Structures are given as C-alpha cells and as structure tokens.
C-alpha cells in the first residue's frame, strides 16, 4: 500500500503563495469559534473561478460551518474571506446555497419558490418573464410536469432537483452545496451528480462550486480538487488535485486502479488524522490526571 503512494498520489500544495489576483474565493487564516470552542482553525483556501472543489471530511469536522461562512450566514471569528477581492460580510445572491434538506419553502409550489427567488435576483423583470424562466429551469432538471406541485407532493430527489433549479435560475456565479445528496438513494444521487456536473460544465462562464460531502467516491467523481478537513477542531489536513479527465464515467472510474488507490489513500489519511487526534487527546487527559 505504501508503495502506491509514489505512483498515483498527487497531493500538491495548491494554496496560494500570495494574494496577487483578486479573483475567485479566498480564505485566509480563517478561524471560527462557537461559544469559545474552536470549530475551525486557521483555514487557508483559494478556489479559482470556475473551479469545482469538494470539501471532504467526517461528520463534525466543521465543513458545514465552513460552507455557512462562505455563504455569509455565519460571522468568522478572525481571518479573511473574500469573493473577487470583496470581503464576504453577509449572504448574497452571488453565492447561492443548496442545503441537504432541500430548503424549498413548503407552502409554495415549485414554480413559486423559483419566481420568489427571481423577483429578488432580477427585480427589474416582470412576472411573466420570471414565470417563463422558472419553467425553463424546471424543465432543465426534468420537473416540467411538477412545476405547480408543492414540496410535500414530491420525492426527496425531486425536491433537491427543484432546489438546484432555483439556484440555477438565480444565476449565481458561486454555488455552495452542503451535502446536497446525502439523503438520497444511490440512483437519484448518481442522477443528480450528473445533473450538477452538466450544469457546471455547460454554464458560461463556468460556475464556481464548493461542494461539501463525506463521501470519498463522490468527491473524486465530482471535483477538480478535493480539500480534506480533519476534525476537532476543523482544519485542512490535505489538498489534492483530482487527476481524472472530464467528462468522467462512473463505470470507468470505479474500475480504474488509480481511482481505487486514491480512494484508499484518502481513507488512510483520515485514519491517520483520527489516530493522531486520539493520541493528542490522551496526552492532554493524561496531563489532567496528573494535576
């Protein structure tokens, strides 16, 4: 196993050496504490415009918090966060979020969920235009017939497609996705992964995507780059560029040795991190007993 590392591992430090350019998403020495407990520690990350980045980590590593910070839904304790050189201080339609629980308003039909969003993102347009655009995007995600339906009438997969359609209709250059397919069955999951990739690849200009997941294979299938987060407190433990050419085929990927090795390496890296943490904790508690 150790020998495989040199063959396929492509762990490169992709952090910016300096902040010359004012493009993309920038995260510099970000810290976030909740009630005095550090949740995220000294995070540095640069996401280029049009890049698809997966944040990969175990549950409780703060990846959702990190995404909420990028969205502007939480305030960071210290550090710097910017999009195109402008600091992120609050939520904005530039950075739309797709949440795990679909986050459609249940009292509105799908199409009304989208037109409500459009009324905010395109305030100068008239109702009819918004309706047409909403229907167009629903058709794009295969929900043309469900436009007038309410979320309770739809399956989880359909609701998530609706949420994606809303995000697309908004035309936000940045899409932040928080384990969007975590609650879906494998078939729907694969279908929506394809949908997101399709949307991402065909949009001009390409959308910048930050996609949170705890699924190694999902991250390898989707991302240009995988950022691995360790827990307690959350921090970047490794970044790697995914070497597979696009468009990727799920079947070819799963069969390739490179994919399998990479998957094992990532899992191994997380195991190491957990072990180190346990060791560190036992040292601390050992000290405490001494006192």
């Amino acid at each position, binding site marked *: 196993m150790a020998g495989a590392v040199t063959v396929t591992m492509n762990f490169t430090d992709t952090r910016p050496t300096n902040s010359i350019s004012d493009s993309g998403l920038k995260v510099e020495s970000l810290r976030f504490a909740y009630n005095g407990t550090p949740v995220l520690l000294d995070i540095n990350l640069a996401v280029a415009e049009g890049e698809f980045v997966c944040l990969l980590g175990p549950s409780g590593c703060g990846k959702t918090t990190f995404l909420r910070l990028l969205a502007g839904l939480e305030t960071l304790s210290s550090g710097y966060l910017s999009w195109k050189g402008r600091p992120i201080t609050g939520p*904005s339609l530039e950075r739309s979020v797709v949440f795990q629980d679909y*986050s459609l308003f249940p009292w509105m039909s799908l199409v009304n969920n989208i037109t409500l969003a459009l009324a905010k*993102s395109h305030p100068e347009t008239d109702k009819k235009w918004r309706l047409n655009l909403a229907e167009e995007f629903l058709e794009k995600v295969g929900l043309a017939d469900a436009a007038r339906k309410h979320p309770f009438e739809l399956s989880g997969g359909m609701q998530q497609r609706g949420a994606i359609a809303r995000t697309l209709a908004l035309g936000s250059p940045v899409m932040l996705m928080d384990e969007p397919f975590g609650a879906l069955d494998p078939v729907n999951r694969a279908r929506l992964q394809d949908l997101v990739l399709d949307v991402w690849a065909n949009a001009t200009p390409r959308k910048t995507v930050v996609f949170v997941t705890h699924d190694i294979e999902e991250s390898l299938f989707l991302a240009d780059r995988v950022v691995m987060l360790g827990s307690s407190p959350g921090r970047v433990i490794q970044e790697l560029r995914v070497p597979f050419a696009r468009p990727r085929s799920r079947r070819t990927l799963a069969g390739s040795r490179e994919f399998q090795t990479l998957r094992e390496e990532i899992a191994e890296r997380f195991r190491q991190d957990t072990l180190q943490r346990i060791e560190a904790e036992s040292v601390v508690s050992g000290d405490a007993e001494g006192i």
Partner: protein
Amino acid sequence: MKALMAESKITPSGSFPLAARLRVETAVKPAVVRRDSWLRLRGREGVLFLLGIALLWQFVSSSIHFKGAYLFPSPAVTLKALWGSLPELLKGTVSSLLVLVPGYALAVAAGIVWGLLVGTIPWVGRMFSPFARLASPVPPTIYIPYAIALLPTFRTAAGFVVFVGAFWPVFLNTASGAASLPQRYRDNARILGLRGTEYLWRIVFPASLPHIFSGMSVGLVFSFIMLTVAELFGASAGLGRFVQLYADYADYPRMVAGILYTGLVVLLAMELLEKVKRRALFWMK
C-alpha cells in the same frame, strides 16, 4: 410461516400459541373474528357514550322520587322547547355574532401582526415580553364590569372583552411560532435577500401558521366564553341573555335548550375554523 414456527417454540408444550392461531384464522377467514359482537363496537364508543348520557338524562328527569327533577327537563320536553324557541334563538345568535365576529376578527388580526413582529424583531420582543407576561394571565372575565362602565354601549364593551379574551392566545402562539422559525427558512430567506414586510408576510407568517391556528382555536373558545359571560351581565339580546332570562323565569326546558343550542353554535364555529385550517395548511405533511 417462519415467524409462526419461531413463536410456537416459545410455548413449552410446543402447540400453537393462541395469538398465532388467531392470526392464522384472521388470515384465512376474517369473518371468524368479526363474529364476535364486542368487536363491532370498535369505533363507535363516542356514539355509545352520548347514548348513555341521554339515557341517564331521561332516567333522572323521569324519576319521581328525585326532588330536583324539575331542574332536569326530559329530553323530549327540552327538544320541544328548543323547537319552540328556535326563532328567538336564531335572533339571539345574530345579535351574539354581531359582537363576537368583529371582536374575534380584530383580535386575530392584531394578534397575528403583533405576534409576528414580537417573535421576529428582537428589540420589539424585549420591549413587549415583560408587559405580555404581566397582562396575559389576567382572566379576561375580570375586565367585564370595567369595560361596561368604560365604554358607551354594551355592544362595544362586550366586543372589547371578546377582543381581550381572543387576543392573548392568538398573540402568544403567533409570537412563539415566529420565534421558533426553523433555521433553514431563515437562512434561505437571508440568501434570497428577503427583508421587512415581505419576509414577514411570505416566510414568517406561513411558517407560523400551525401555531397561529392553535392560537385561533383557543381564542375562539375564549371569545365565546367572554361573549356569553358578558351577555349574562347586561345584554338585551343574545345567547347568554336567552339562558339568563329563562333561568330567571325558572323556565328550565328553555334554559337547557339554550345551553344545548349555544354548545351547537360553538361546535359549528370550531368546525368551520378547522376546515379553514385544513385548507390553509394543506402543504403540511
């Protein structure tokens, strides 16, 4: 079948346990179990209980050995009285509703608007909560004499106490609904940039609707209590007045008929509200 085998092992004799045998029988021919007449009563307990009450009523009212029997007019006599005073009762209903509907409607409107503001805007909540904690537990019936003294007509006084009785439940429930708005709706609204009245009206209000409706049904019951009590005090018409009048005349058949009729009106009002609620909350699952 496997489950049955497993279960049969539990009994020491090795014979089929009773439960398992019953299950087999129901599976093969359900009629066997349904033959049991006791099981036919399932789902009809409510009707039976009402029947029992009616029988007890009949028994008490027709018992000659019971001194106070005149206070318990028999069902037949009461129904006759009800039929006879129906025009008067209908007139009373109109008069009562003319007080109740405006008072209740105003309480619902004010309770919702103010509840949404108090539950959503922190400083408004901090400002109003101490007062609400002080004022809301006061039994609203206690205001009746004061309201009658303070307001020019009986109708405005009764309308006012109906308002007070219904306002607090609607307000308190709306405020707690608005304050417990799920984080995901709040996040979503923030990302979409929904603010101000639009945020209150399109997000907080619909999300709080389940709470609002429970406040409205408690408020409705309170409204009727306040209304009838106020009418006992000094109305010239209305349902409470009807009952009070015939109690004064010791016309107990009519009085009991008035009570039954009032109960029916409240029941219908509650059913109506329930219908509205089911329509408004169709999106809940």
